[in-house]
């Protein structure tokens, strides 16, 4: 049975996945910026309030990943914003995050050269989300 999407327990398991990944560890060497994921509300999908995932990432490891408000996530150095359904597509491998950003399905804010330099780390981070078994609110 999965954990509730974008819950504290989900954040803990996501952090564990990131720290278990040797690919992420080497690809994100030198990374020193915070990343915020804004998950926009979709009341008709049983996701009534926007949430923010704040990721404190440093030099190939996740020091902390927490779930708070969208405003918390918007304070990060890099912010990726999308509605709940898009994030679900990313986490279930229906949507590749790189393609999603190029298509504008995921909105990215932050220094572009830096994020491009760490494309491989971003892809592995996305892979880590797919490894966390999730119970989706719109499927309850």
């Amino acid at each position: 049975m999965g954990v509730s999407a974008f819950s504290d327990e989900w954040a803990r398991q996501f952090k564990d996945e990131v720290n278990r990944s040797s690919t992420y560890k080497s690809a994100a060497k030198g990374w020193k910026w915070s990343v915020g994921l804004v998950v926009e509300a979709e009341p008709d999908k049983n996701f009534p309030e926007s949430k923010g995932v704040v990721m404190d990432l440093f030099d190939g490891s996740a020091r902390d990943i927490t779930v708070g408000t969208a405003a918390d996530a918007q304070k990060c150095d890099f912010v990726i914003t999308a509605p709940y359904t898009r994030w679900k597509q990313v986490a279930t491998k229906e949507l590749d995050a790189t393609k999603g950003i190029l298509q504008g399905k995921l909105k990215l804010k932050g220094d572009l050269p830096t994020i491009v330099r760490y494309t491989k780390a971003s892809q592995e981070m996305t892979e880590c989300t797919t490894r966390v078994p999730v119970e989706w609110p719109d499927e309850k």
Partner: protein
Amino acid sequence: MHDAGPGRMARRKIETDKAVDYADPEPSAFASMLGGLIDANIANSPAKRKDFDELGARVGIWVTDIDEGVTLEFHRGSLIVHNGLKPKRDITIRAEAETVMNLSNLRIGLFGMPVYYDEVGRGVAAKLVQRKLRIDGMLGNIATVNTVTRIFSVR
């Protein structure tokens, strides 16, 4: 009464001091990303700025797995980014999204040549061999391809 006549199109004049501008009132996400990337690169690197100031070319980029593209119109010191592929391109790069991102991660080595012997470079070279990365017009425009690669590169 003024009549522009059939077949003539009004040309929108783009007046700006910005190095990078967009031809379309609503640039696509891909256009914004590439334009933003080039803008940041030339602001951060005098060598890339010099390349940008010397480059005059029309470069198309088509991302094959999302069916989206842009045309980059370099005018020696300014760039206009168009949504989609426009005519009269000197070179056109066609690749999947991941490969397009990897092109921006190519290291630049001696004499300003892209490095194809490290992990990223080998990956890009393999895509060229497999024809998953195609550069139409490359043969007559090797110098342009290398200059564009240097301007794209975040390394």
